[in-house]
């Protein structure tokens, strides 16, 4: 559990650290103070692209991650959307994908629980959310390590399944 103000300050530090800017997968980083979140646009990993072709018979274009805060759980909350690449009448376009078995597609079965939800703070738009109820058990919330809570959370909830390599 991390208090909101502490989370907010750690999110700013994380953004300032350039860790996302230097991530090979990251195409765009946007800190949205008004909406309490950090938006990442990522290119899909090879494994994710393969899974999408195998399970959905589709081609991934990009992944969106939104790092925000759950005031219900007092925990960081990770939201995800994936976009497929399509061509209609020769015109390339991207389209939101909502596969039923998202956990298999991301290869995170047994590690994280995901569900589709409408997010009030984001105009009610539909995202997959990583259920945050076990976060403090996963990340560890001993007071002496509180200053690195969000960094550890990012390592587990994002880099553990997407991998991290410098660009």
């Amino acid at each position: 559990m991390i208090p909101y103000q502490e989370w907010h300050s750690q999110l700013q530090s994380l953004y300032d650290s350039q860790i996302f800017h230097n991530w090979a997968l990251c195409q765009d980083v946007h800190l949205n103070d008004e909406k309490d979140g950090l938006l990442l646009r990522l290119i899909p990993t090879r494994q994710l692209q393969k899974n999408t072709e195998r399970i959905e018979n589709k081609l991934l274009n990009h992944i969106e991650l939104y790092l925000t805060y759950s005031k219900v759980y007092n925990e960081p909350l990770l939201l995800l959307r994936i976009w497929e690449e399509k061509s209609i009448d020769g015109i390339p376009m991207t389209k939101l994908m909502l596969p039923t078995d998202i956990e298999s597609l991301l290869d995170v079965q047994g590690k994280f629980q995901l569900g589709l939800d409408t997010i009030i703070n984001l105009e009610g738009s539909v995202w997959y959310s990583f259920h945050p109820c076990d976060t403090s058990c996963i990340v560890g919330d001993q007071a002496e390590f509180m200053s690195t809570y969000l960094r550890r959370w990012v390592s587990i909830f994002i880099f553990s399944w997407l991998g991290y390599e410098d660009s």
Partner: protein
Amino acid sequence: MNDIKQLLWNGELNVLVSIDPSFLMKGSPREIAVLRIRVPRETYLVNYMPLIWNKIKSFLSFDPLTDSEKYFWFEHNKTPIPWNYPVGVLFDCLAGKSATFTTSFENQVKDVLTFLRIHLVMGDSLPPTIIPIASSKTQAEKFWFHQWKQVCFILNGSSKAIMSLSVNEARKFWGSVITRNFQDFIEISNKISSSRPRHIPLIIQTSRTSGTFRISQPTISMTGVNPTLKDIEGDILDVKEGINGNDVMVICQGIEIPWHMLLYDLYSKLRSFDGFLYITLVPIKGGDKASSEL
């Protein structure tokens, strides 16, 4: 108190489901595209999808279970409506424009028969605020259980009470919704509830003239206090939109609620089957702001 809960549990609505012609093969009988059903207020519309698919399966122009290019959702008066709210909550919000629920014929009879009219539609892409109706039979159960996890956390500060349910109890809990077993529902929901909650799981919805819903989920602390609705008026009303308490009626479970009602009493008596207390703000006709801004 259980008498009130039982009355709510037994409450039903007449729902008229019309199926968009795009679902059906040309030449399908017209009557196949309309379904009149009585639906408990305390369930999800999507729980009726097996019944709907079963009725139209012989006339479908495609296979909804395998076609991953098509999305399905419900609409009311061409406005998408979410399935992930209790049916009664949807009705309370849409009932602000009650004239749309009755046909001209029905208006002529003394005891007006009110229908919630919904239209099942499909498309290649979804309205942005709608969770698509999936072919999976566990879609609603998973969503609902996730709601209860949130509720448990809001009430108790941890998910321990719900995570301590045995597999059999968890099955029985969802089973009680499907089989309408009130005793089972009360037995298990009481294990998750708290007589001294930290916060109240509250969702406020306001219908706008555009047909959209505005949803908010304020955090109302109950530590050492027992507020009335009036005490938390600022959390309930959206001050940014300039709405004040004189412009709106507070509706919960189809009932107009006075502002002096204690929040905890309201929660314990009128909460919905997903553990949240839903308050719907309905504009009072002739209210200063109601007609122009809601």
